[in-house]
């Protein structure tokens, strides 16, 4: 048991929820497991629960803590062989686990979308960028021809790309990292989803470009009232970007807290994470290091 019990039980809209009264996403006791080597199962997400309104929710934790697996479970895109279960996994009133695969696929890309970490590998290298954006639109919005092209250019323009017509004709290797990530965002936002899951969308980018991409994401959320799950291992970044933060450790959520009240965090893991970052304004040596306790993982 984590010190403060199961965090953020589904009890009404979370703080900072948008105008809609019903939450966009309800997750309760989400578990993801993979077959273990010697037989049996290896659980990598162990009873995660939270609700999400039209807000920015940050998901932080160290490598391997299950952030990505949680995000992917929402999309239904866990690796082959994964076993996903939950007491409740509802998106806008739809039960994601029991709905037919066809409906699930229709939701993907249309209402729930995902931005991946590294645009270099997440864009199909042999397909023009414009075509990749168009693909989702064609599948979900049944657009074609000039209308489709116009929408593609719109989408590219909306993420702040100059000369979208030119960009649409480029291949992924011909665009820079920042542009690529914007293309990916445009690709995922083109169908105007209600929920966006961003899995470390900026950690492959240059520090300077990172800011621009975050600004684009931020604007989309603000303008369209979309829910955002922002996965990152950078606590400082999440704290400054999101409304609310879930801290994960070994497949569990150990703390759920408003970004503004991060300094009030009670879990030693969260506190340790904050303390161990070197800071420009307050040099400190040696840096405090995390003393892990087995109890956190239990």
């Amino acid at each position, binding site marked *: 048991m984590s010190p403060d019990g199961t965090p953020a039980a589904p009890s009404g809209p979370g703080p900072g929820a948008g105008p809609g009264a019903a939450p966009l996403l309800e997750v309760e006791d989400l578990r993801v497991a993979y077959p273990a080597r010697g037989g049996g199962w290896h659980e990598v997400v162990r009873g995660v629960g939270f609700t999400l309104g039209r807000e920015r929710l940050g998901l932080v934790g160290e490598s391997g803590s299950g952030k990505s697996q949680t995000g992917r479970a929402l999309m239904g895109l866990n690796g082959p062989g994964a076993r996903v279960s939950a007491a409740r996994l509802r998106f806008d009133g739809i039960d994601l686990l029991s709905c037919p695969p066809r409906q699930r696929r229709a939701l993907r*890309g249309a209402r729930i979308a*995902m931005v991946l970490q590294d645009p270099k590998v997440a864009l199909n290298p042999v397909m023009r960028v414009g075509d990749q954006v168009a*693909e989702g639109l064609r599948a979900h919005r049944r657009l074609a021809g000039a209308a489709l092209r116009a929408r593609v250019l719109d989408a590219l323009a909306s993420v702040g790309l100059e000369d979208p017509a030119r960009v649409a004709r480029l291949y992924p*290797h011909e665009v820079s990292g920042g542009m690529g990530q914007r293309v990916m965002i445009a690709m995922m936002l083109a169908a105007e989803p209600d929920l966006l899951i961003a899995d470390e969308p900026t950690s492959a980018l240059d520090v300077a470009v990172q800011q621009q991409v975050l600004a684009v994401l931020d604007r989309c959320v603000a303008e369209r009232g979309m829910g955002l799950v922002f996965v990152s291992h950078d606590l400082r970044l999440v704290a400054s970007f999101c409304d609310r933060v879930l801290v994960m450790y070994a497949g569990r959520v150990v703390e759920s807290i408003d970004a503004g009240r991060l300094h009030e965090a009670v879990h030693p893991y969260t506190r340790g994470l904050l303390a161990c970052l070197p800071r420009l304004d307050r040099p400190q040596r040696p840096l405090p290091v995390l003393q892990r306790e087995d109890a956190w993982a239990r």
Partner: protein
Amino acid sequence: MSGGRLRRSGRALRALAGGALSVAATFLGLLAVTFFIGRVMPVDPVLAIVGDRAPEHVVERVREELGLNQPLPVQFVRYVRQALRGDFGTSVLTANPVLEDLRRVVPATVELATCGILIGIGLGVPLGVAAAVWQGRWIDQAARLVGLIGYSVPIFWLGLMALLVFYARLGWVGGPGRIDVAYEYTVPTLSGLLLLDAAWAGEWEAFGNALSHLVLPAALLGLFSLASISRMTRSLLIAELSQEYVLAARAKGLSTARIVWRHALRNAAVPLLTVIALSYGGLLEGSVLTETVFAWPGLGLYLTNSLQNADMNAVLGATLVVGTVFVGLNLLSDAAYRWLDPRTRAGA
């Protein structure tokens, strides 16, 4: 913009020149190797010309005529000069200019190998795709089995058995040879590809007959290329399917079919093409044995015959053709690489 294009075309030109140079080097190597083989072979090439029962003075005279009594370097220079002029000389075995022989036998093999590879691609790619998509399921096992058969069974043995079953017992297909003698003079020779020529001339009966002869050896060769093609398709596709961009495509909500065929396969196509090109070359090679079994008058048979009879002109010509085809296939697959993969297209 135009400057970039200019630079790009300049780069392409340089690549082309480099390619030509390497092809030239390969050719010179081919010539040297064939020459070497011809000289160390413990067979007297004169024998091939005059036969065993010729009296000694005839043998000596022919030896002189061939320049075989000159020092080796002189012979090599002469040999290279002739080959460069496109003069492969006259085949001892057929008494025809080698070039003319090649014009006859190469199309026969090309027809056979092409049909083989078409079968191999037509069945192998879908099989490989199915095996990759349904990894570990029965279709995967089946594909594996087919692949293993293709890799493990000697072609000459399977060929004979197939002939026995499908021709002798069941009578479903035509027998050995390219066409029944009855049609020997009904099809005018244009391309040398019997099927095309027959269709062009509107000789449908002959077409059917030629097809019935072609089916079995082509299917056999097809099985062998199918083995490698399906196996490579499978492993390439599996590798592609675990790429991030596939995840992105799934996140877009695309159907599995579209992801597999449009995204993953398109990426796998690049190395796959090389595999196919190589396996086409392999078929030309496999035809050596197949043609023996099926009495198919193609390059493979020509080459073995010439080798065994020390018909060096013919050996040189045929080897050069095969070598050229290999080199050409390599160049072609390189070009396809460039065409299919935009990353290499810019030369970056």
